[in-house]
């Protein structure tokens, strides 16, 4: 089953706020409003014809200038009004696969930077546990209903979320100096900022 058929199924059976996105990149994806994520994913897992029994990957990325065409899902605006506007958000991606039906689908959603909250899907797939912990650790997304939401890669007292675009790496951590040496500084290319 390809993504479009799955999209039609969701739309027919669930009446969810979803949108289909095909324009960008080689893999089409289904766009779901963040408060519908758990319901849509539950449907995808439990429907017999779909039976997505694996969560291959889940992650997110920080979009500083997202000119999304789906604003009408969030706000009560028409499609044309959003043109030209940009929006800062954390985009979340779920990659699902089914060993029984041998098909895959990409589910996308996004949350605003100020209020990064989405439902946890640990109850559906155990593999979501660590993947969500990693997204929480590096991107600062809070998963509601996650049993054990702690930092996984970084130490518990780390400040900030490194994979956000506005993250500035600290100059010291527990009195360990992190400033580059004179030699390193002299090698930094001019006019190239990191």
């Amino acid at each position: 089953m390809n993504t479009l058929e799955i999209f039609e199924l969701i739309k027919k059976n669930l009446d969810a706020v979803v949108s289909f996105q095909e324009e960008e990149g080689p893999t089409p994806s289904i766009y779901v409003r963040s408060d519908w994520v758990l319901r849509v994913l539950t449907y995808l897992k439990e429907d017999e014809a779909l039976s997505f029994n694996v969560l291959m990957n889940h992650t997110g990325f920080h979009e500083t200038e997202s000119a999304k065409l789906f604003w009408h899902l969030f706000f009560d605006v028409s499609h044309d009004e959003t043109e030209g506007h940009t929006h800062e958000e954390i985009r979340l991606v779920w990659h699902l696969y089914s060993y029984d039906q041998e098909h895959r689908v990409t589910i996308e959603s996004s949350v605003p930077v100020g209020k990064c909250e989405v439902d946890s899907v640990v109850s559906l797939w155990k593999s979501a546990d660590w993947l969500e912990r990693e997204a929480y650790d590096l991107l600062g997304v809070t998963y509601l209903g996650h049993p054990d939401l702690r930092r996984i890669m970084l130490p518990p007292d780390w400040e900030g979320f490194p994979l956000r675009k506005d993250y500035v790496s600290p100059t010291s951590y527990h009195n360990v100096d992190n400033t580059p040496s004179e030699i390193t500084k002299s090698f930094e290319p001019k006019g190239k900022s990191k």
Partner: protein
Amino acid sequence: MMGAYFQNIKNGFTTVFEGMSITFATMFVRKETVQYPEVDITSNKTIAEKYKGSLMGMPDNYRGVLILENGLCTACQICQRTCPIDCIAIENAKCDKTKPTDKDGKPVLNRFTQKEAIKTRALTRFDINIAKCMFCGLCEAACPTGAIHHTKQFEMNRECQEDLVLRFVSDGEKEIAVKRAEEIEAEAEAKKAAKAEKEKEAKEKEEQEKGAEE
């Protein structure tokens, strides 16, 4: 139940027997250890003949310490931009337009365009920080004239980090290059001034002519 009990004992003895025969056999086959600093691994003939064949020593494309052949470099800075970890630093200044030549005096071709390479800028600084280099070979692949390339040298421990910065342009060369650049600048300046003078003169002449006409 009882069968499994005796099967376990039997399997235990037979598999240990087989395993012991293998370890015992290994005692009498060739030892793989090469006692490195004493055995010259790059040229030892006995190793080659015994078991390495053409794999003996360093292969031709071995990625050791980087080296720059100043004569070939056109100061194009492609290697600096390619390097993922910024371990190459290049500064340059204007120079006379020349064509770099290799050892035999033949002009060097640009590897990508197959045209003769042209040098318009001279190096005033070419440093490689070997302490940071990860020997990925991207700079070597990107260099159009083959000036920067890896050597087979791999022993590179030094006393301090400063010694690991390889400088390929000496202060003397830098001074000459800077001086020459200033000269060129001055010449260009002079040319420009002369040209301006000429134009001015021409203008004045014109005006004078104009005035005379009036």
